[in-house]
């Protein structure tokens, strides 16, 4: 009847499976979707990313020449990075750390529209 016995004895002597997280961090997988980063030097404010973002996490203000990113809305779908033709958005493998107040990233891109 005690069919579970071998398993729990193995657990007891095999040591816990726990990864002691804050003290012991595993490397992320190579292509994990952690969070997105914007490169102000490459972005030309074309607005492709904002149009395609399913969560409306990016707003573009052409007059003020500003790109505003709301990390608390981003669902890390990687769509913006695929949409951007200037490679101005990269997806990093590390997840975004929690915060006390919702951050708002305001970017003032300096990228030039190339002639190509």
């Amino acid at each position, binding site marked *: 009847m005690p069919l579970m016995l071998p398993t729990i004895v193995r657990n007891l002597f095999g040591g816990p499976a726990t990864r002691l*997280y804050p003290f012991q961090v595993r490397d992320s997988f190579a292509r994990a979707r952690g969070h997105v980063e914007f490169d102000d030097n490459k972005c030309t404010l074309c607005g492709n990313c904002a149009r395609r973002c399913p*969560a*409306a996490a990016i707003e573009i203000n052409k007059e003020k020449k500003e790109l505003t990113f709301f990390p608390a809305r981003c669902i890390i779908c990687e769509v913006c990075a695929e949409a951007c033709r200037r490679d101005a958005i990269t997806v990093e493998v590390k997840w975004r750390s*929690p*915060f*006390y*107040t919702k951050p708002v990233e305001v970017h003032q891109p300096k990228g030039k529209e190339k002639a190509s």
Partner: protein
Amino acid sequence: MGIIHTSRIKSPWIIHFDNSSCNGCDIEALACLTPLYDVERFGIVNMGNPKHADVLVITGPVNYRTARVLKNLYAQIPDPKMVIAVGTCACSGGVFHNCYNILGGVDKVVPVDVYVPGCAARPEAIIDGVVLALQKLAQAQGVAK
């Protein structure tokens, strides 16, 4: 009161409330209890009873019906309490921003102490969030003393 303050930081009992999330963050919050992450290391126990809880972990965006339940639940938790919003949609509504029955993030209904972004928020991120919440609690107590 020293020992009570230390104990508060060492024994955060949580209650998990699922607003109208997609379950993604719920299962990640549950995964925190399982062998690989085992948050019981920090004394965290999932109580399932607001009267015993210290930390309210909320997943999912608030809709019109859960808003009332959430307020109720929050009132039932004895002080001192912390609120952690887990997942992008608990933070802001996220991908559901244009759904008609969604009010938005959890902070529209109850005060939130820590936001954990991510869709779904990874168990590691949730642990980070709890650590951050406990730091805030420790600081608040330092001031109060």
